[in-house]
């Protein structure tokens, strides 16, 4: 594991950002060329939501991986978090533009009446301050303690995202429940009372 960590130290953080936007470029490109089937809007919207969930899982996996396996990904956690937010924002953007096509009355009604959309939007709004403070200047201004407290909102954002996914499925499908299970597992792993501050 030390050798893995040594190799990881040589990997520039920029590479993670670059690799992180590739799924979007790939998916959007496939949509343009017919690779997403005959309803590419829905496919893109769902893919972006899934990538957001996957990056959120990755963010929350960083600490347990370090604690239990000794794998140190701390340097990349900010990039993973920013990418998670990017995919949440793109998911929302596709919903408003390509899917609902700026039908503000319907968007407004959905935001009030649809529980899964309320939950998803709550996850986005809670993630927004985290994205805005994911830089060294904000960390200095807030101070380490306040910054860490604020960023514990991630513990809420991931379960909300997973619940959003579970709620919009027509049946009890396996995939959304797997994300919910992952979210619960990643939170339970943090319940070690001796290390409550981690």
């Amino acid at each position: 594991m030390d050798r893995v960590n040594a190799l990881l130290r040589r990997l520039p953080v920029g590479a993670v950002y670059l690799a992180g936007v590739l799924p979007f470029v790939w998916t959007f490109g496939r949509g343009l060329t017919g690779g997403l089937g005959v309803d590419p809007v829905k496919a893109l919207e769902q893919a972006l939501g899934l990538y957001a969930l996957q990056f959120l899982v990755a963010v929350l996996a960083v600490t347990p991986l370090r604690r239990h396996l000794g794998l140190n990904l701390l340097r990349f956690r900010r990039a993973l978090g920013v990418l998670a937010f990017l995919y949440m924002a793109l998911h929302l953007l596709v919903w408003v533009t390509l899917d609902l096509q700026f039908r503000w009355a319907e968007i407004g009604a959905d935001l009030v009446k649809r529980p899964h959309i309320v939950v998803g939007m709550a996850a986005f709004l809670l993630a927004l301050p985290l994205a805005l403070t994911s830089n060294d200047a904000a960390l200095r201004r807030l101070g380490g303690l306040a910054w860490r407290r604020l960023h514990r909102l991630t513990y809420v954002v991931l379960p909300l995202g997973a619940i959003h996914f579970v709620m919009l499925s027509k049946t009890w499908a396996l995939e959304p429940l797997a994300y919910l299970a992952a979210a619960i597992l990643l939170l339970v792993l943090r319940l070690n009372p001796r290390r409550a501050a981690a």
Partner: protein
Amino acid sequence: MPVKSGLKWSDVTPRSVWMNRRALMIGAGSALVAGPALARIDAAPSRYSTDETPNTLEEISSYNNFYEFGFDKGDPARNAGGLTIDPWSVTVDGLVDRPGNYNLGDLIKDAPLEERIYRFRCVEAWSMVIPWIGFELSHILAKVGVQPGARYVAFETLLRPSEMPGQQRDNFPWPYVEGLRLDEAMHPLTIMATGLYGDELPRQNGAPMRLVVPWKYGFKSIKSIVRISLTAEQPPTTWNKLQPSEYGFYANVNPGVDHPRWSQASERRVGGGFLAPRIDTQMFNGYGEEVAHLYAGQDLTVDF
């Protein structure tokens, strides 16, 4: 009353369609995939057809909710190829004069085929325009003789897990069942579709015979039918059994009654890639003039 006549299902395909298909195979076969249906089909045109541009055959046959072949909309096109549709028999029972186990070809051989270009609105808020070939359900009902006590028609999809991989999972109450009130079933807009775009119905679209009720959400239009029962009581329907608060027995397209989890005010018309337009959903999917009278006196927010 088992019937064996030697007639095969393929024997009922109208000559015009066969000729049309041969011409296509000789000519540019791929033109069928892209072009609108009207110009190439000899099945009798219908005054009930919309003049909207139909979706392409590829769109109609690659984006299907047919859980018998998997939950993903691409699964039916991938997994339905092995379904045996010939021979095919349909059991007709309940309150009918001539119940029996009919060979499909015998059951429908006298029914006049028409092309019906219908709007198709899924409960998931997407829609297409589909050039079905079929005949009015009332032809079958007249043939088997509806008894006076009958008030509903129940339908059942094939149960054959060996050829329908989705049925190998037990998280769904197979077989799929649906139903109509008798007046809905007798309405001239209600058809049994056996073809699409001048050819036999693709398996993923419900071959060899499916219901099409254009003013109702798509899940009412049950596919690959093996049983038709006339009943006095309202029959159970699959989605209603699964989620009674979300899917009613009637399931008429209604922009004013939301699905509990999403709006039904508008729909995305499939086609056009990322720029597929979102359009307003019409009451009864635009067939109100023909069918609204069926529901006079009913509160459609209760009977949704």
